[in-house]
């Protein structure tokens, strides 16, 4: 691990100044992804700016019934919060579906959003990787990609975003608040394109995540190769409003399938005004997944995602 200096600013201004003081400076939350990547040699900061001491550790109601969640809130506290469990149980479900209690007790909301892909080539500094070293190549495309993307990938990168929390936030139309910008979660992450080294549209200090009120039945479902303590193969955050047998509103966000939490807008549009039947749910899923471009070994994710959508919507209807 490269030697590094450590600082723990008391406010956002201090954090931004520290970040600006060195090109090798990185923000430290719980460290559950960053310290791991530092130990692997993937990340090599010369200065860690610990943001867990910033006054961003609260969960507060917003006028209108939403919530504002500080970026320094620990994942475990987020999932256990009474307001979150009452108004956005899908968010608590998604957080609890991820990692282990030990990891959730350290991990912060901000850090969860910014965690990097678990693609084996990204994590292995002896391998080429366009995300880690732009221009070096993508061995995953023809190599080990069983758990990588089926949607939105490019010839340069087929990585997926690993967060469960981010998928729920995408379905909830959450907004990421940085010190100098407010960006919807659905617009915060980038498709890899020809610059896979950039996961997000903005770099900077996340201070909070704001959720507008939901008020719809919603669920988070995660499919994985083990019963627990595994990343999603495919996951789904879904919300559904049905009145008199007709879909009034639908929200669908898929995890494990793309470089971003994948908001299934084509499916949502197909569902609005459609009868709340399995036929409609399947047709909507098929419409969304028509743009899937599976790789050699991950085509199984297409029917898996389709069936997950149909089954979850049937549960919610």
């Amino acid at each position: 691990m490269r030697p590094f200096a450590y600082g723990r600013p008391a406010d956002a201004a201090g954090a931004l100044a520290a970040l600006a003081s060195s090109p090798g400076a990185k923000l430290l939350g719980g460290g559950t992804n960053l310290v791991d990547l530092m130990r692997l040699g993937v990340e090599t900061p010369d200065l860690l700016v610990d943001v867990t001491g910033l006054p961003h550790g609260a969960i507060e109601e917003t006028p209108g019934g939403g919530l504002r969640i500080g970026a320094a809130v620990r994942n475990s506290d987020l999932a256990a919060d009474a307001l979150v469990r009452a108004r956005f149980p899908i968010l608590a479900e998604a957080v609890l579906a991820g990692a282990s209690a030990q990891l959730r007790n350290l991990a912060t909301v901000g850090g969860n959003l910014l965690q990097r892909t678990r693609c084996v080539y990204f994590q292995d500094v002896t391998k080429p990787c366009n995300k880690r070293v732009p221009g070096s190549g993508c061995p995953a495309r023809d190599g080990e990609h069983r758990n990588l993307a089926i949607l939105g990938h490019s010839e340069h990168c087929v990585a997926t975003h690993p967060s469960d929390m981010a998928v729920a936030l995408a379905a909830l139309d959450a907004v990421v608040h940085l010190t100098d910008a407010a960006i919807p979660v659905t617009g915060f992450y980038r498709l890899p394109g020809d610059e896979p080294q950039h996961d997000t549209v903005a770099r900077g200090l996340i201070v909070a995540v704001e959720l507008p009120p939901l008020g719809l039945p919603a669920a988070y479902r995660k499919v994985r190769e083990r019963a627990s303590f595994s990343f999603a193969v495919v996951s789904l955050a879904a919300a559904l409003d049905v009145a008199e047998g007709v879909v009034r509103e639908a929200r669908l966000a898929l995890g494990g399938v793309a470089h971003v939490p994948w908001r299934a807008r084509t499916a949502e549009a197909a569902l609005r005004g459609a009868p709340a039947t399995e036929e409609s749910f399947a047709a909507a899923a098929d419409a969304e997944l028509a743009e899937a471009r599976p790789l050699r070994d991950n085509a199984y994710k297409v029917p898996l995602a389709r069936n997950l959508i149909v089954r979850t919507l049937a549960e919610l209807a």
Partner: protein
Amino acid sequence: MDADISLRVNGAEHTLRVDTRTSLLDLLREHLGLTGAKKGCDHGQCGACTVLLDGRRVNACLALAVAHRGSDVVTIEGLAQDGELHPLQRAFIEHDAFQCGYCTPGQICSAVGMLREAGSRPGEAEIREGMNGNLCRCGAYANIVAAIAEVAS
């Protein structure tokens, strides 16, 4: 780069100067000689390094010591009180909940943390899910769950 760190471990105050790269696990094992917590993977994947940090179970391998100044750490060595084993330690022995013993300190510390987190009495499924971050290569899971279930009841 070195940093001065003060923290409490098993009730005793310590002040040390360590390289900033030192994990809490390395501080406990290498600097304080508390070798109960184990380095199973050093990547937060096995749970053998689990200790209680300010009352919460964490992977000591991913916690940088310098980031936890002033914290209160309890390790497996600190669970017994006045020569009396912690109920979970006794239960692990009675239920034969370990074979090689390597994961055991982490299992017990994790279970202590879990029972503080759990609402009502956790059933078997909740215990298994709650302990999902602690791996056991010897496969003692059935007895680990039984030991925890006894204490949880």
